[in-house]
């Protein structure tokens, strides 16, 4: 019912018909889907019933594991520096990869990543060794590559 409360508040605050239409299209439809498509007991099925039509999928366990670790990122950039020193040119810069992994669940459709250049990540793990936050960056790279992130026509672009 959260969608309805938000829409009422928005309507009272702005008195705008555009807000009303927007809420009907998004919030209300969402809530309807949630009410109608409820499948008790199975969180994944419930998630898919609510958010599946919007193109969202629950992350697989590996994405979630790496994503949680990637959230410790300080964005210090040492992995980028070390990777450049090792003459690596992976399709995704290691720092971008970690930031992407941390946001993969929520921002899958809006990741503005640079286009694919260079060679596949050689998994030399130099980035992982310099990471002050202890993130297994080469694993993140391998996982994102397996998902197709960073390729020219990947869903990230």
């Amino acid at each position, binding site marked *: 019912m959260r969608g309805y409360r938000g829409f009422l508040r928005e309507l009272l605050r702005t008195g705008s018909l555009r807000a009303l239409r927007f809420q009907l299209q998004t919030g209300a439809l969402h809530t309807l889907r949630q009410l109608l498509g409820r499948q008790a007991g199975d969180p994944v099925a419930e998630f898919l019933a609510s958010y599946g039509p919007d193109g969202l999928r629950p992350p697989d366990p590996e994405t979630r594991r790496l994503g949680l670790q990637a959230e410790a990122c*300080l*964005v*210090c*950039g*040492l992995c*980028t*520096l070390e*990777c*450049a*020193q090792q*003459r690596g*040119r992976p399709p995704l*810069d290691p*720092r971008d990869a970690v930031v992407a992994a941390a946001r993969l669940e929520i921002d899958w459709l809006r990741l503005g990543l640079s286009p694919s*250049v*260079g060679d596949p990540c050689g998994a030399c793990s130099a980035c992982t*060794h*310099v*990471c*002050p*936050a*202890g993130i297994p960056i080469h694993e993140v790279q391998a996982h994102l590559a397996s998902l197709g992130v960073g390729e020219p026509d990947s869903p990230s672009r």
Partner: protein
Amino acid sequence: MSVAVVGAGLAGASAALALAEAGFEVVLLAAAPGASALSAGTLDVAAASPGIATLPWRDALRGSPLLPRERLALHRRGAGSHPYGQFFGAAEHVARPEREVEAAVARLAAWLAPHGLDLVGSLGENRLLPTVAGTLHVADFAFHPAADADLLTASALAVVELPGLEGFDGRALARTLTREIEVLGLPACPVRVVYPKLPEGLLRDPRPARVATLLDASEARAALAKACEGLAEPGAVLLFPPVLGIAETRRVASAIADATGARAAEALAFPPHALAGFRLQRALDAALAAAGVRRLPGRARRLLETDAGTLRLAREAEGDLEAEAVVLATGRYASGGLRADPGAVREPLAGLPLFDADGRRIDGIPARRSARKGYGNEQPLYSAGVRTDRRLRPLAAHGRPRHAQLFAAGDLLGGFDPARERTGLGVALLSGLRAARAVTESLRRPQRRHGDVP
């Protein structure tokens, strides 16, 4: 005799290097580079900043710039809890601290020089160095090539624009810097932006680290030097973003200087483009390897005491590590030396009590409880750290050293805020060397009973 040092930042590295020189077998346990690897290009012992009232760079009465040695005296007198206060006391004799600082910096410079990194400066002169944001930083000691950007000795400044380079806007830098020079009433120094015709492919990947790596190759730096010909007159400074090579910085800068007659310098930069800190860490690592320091990767988990009373470090992955003395240079929150968990702030290795700048204990209570409301207020968490006796042995809750052979150095020492006071690297260097001296004295004299106070 073996000594274990935990942490490979400037504090840990200088302790390890000094101990290796003193003839000890040194084991360095390091999970990752230290916070030194994120430094901007200066080594501030007595920091000052035109923008921060608590870091005066001019004499309030005479209006003339304060020299680093005068600021060092201010740091000692003003901040009771600052490690300098403990190192040097409040004595009016400035000669001894000055000698110690200059000797420490000379020692570090001698360690770094064989590995391609030059450290210059003195307590008797200021350098005004521009940052990539166009603000000015007052430095006493600085690394090449940032040190060469000194506005006080430059006839003119030409900012080199590298279009599209990540984290750099030459025109914005020049605009801000021009205003900064005006506002601070500095001698006029014309600032302009120059656009070299860059070698093909230099900026294909626009990250400073990649460009710097390309410039380590001799053809690329020759091509850049040729492109810079005629852009600046002799005596001027060609101010680059941080891209002038990583391993071959000296050669890149001198190639450009030879081609143009101007000084090739870098603006001070911050993470994620902190190339200067990366070079420092690289040179420190090379110096450690050359000194025969045994380096073990991985994170220490817990500091324990054996039944015989000696120290033992439990590691996360590998087996335990025994040592006759241990130097903790584990830093603060980012490196894991301190933990600010939701439940409590703590020192995870030995459970040492932590104090803020006002001397209040703040370990064991939730981080949010010690926070102070209000923008710009000093935050106790930022000055948290251990307290030590005069020989840098961290104190336990009862007020005596936790262990006769346990020492601490660097940011782990509490009582100051390295980010606000900007003395992080200065404290790291001085405390690292002091800890090494304390270890040497303590292991070379007859052992005292455990827990005794000297």
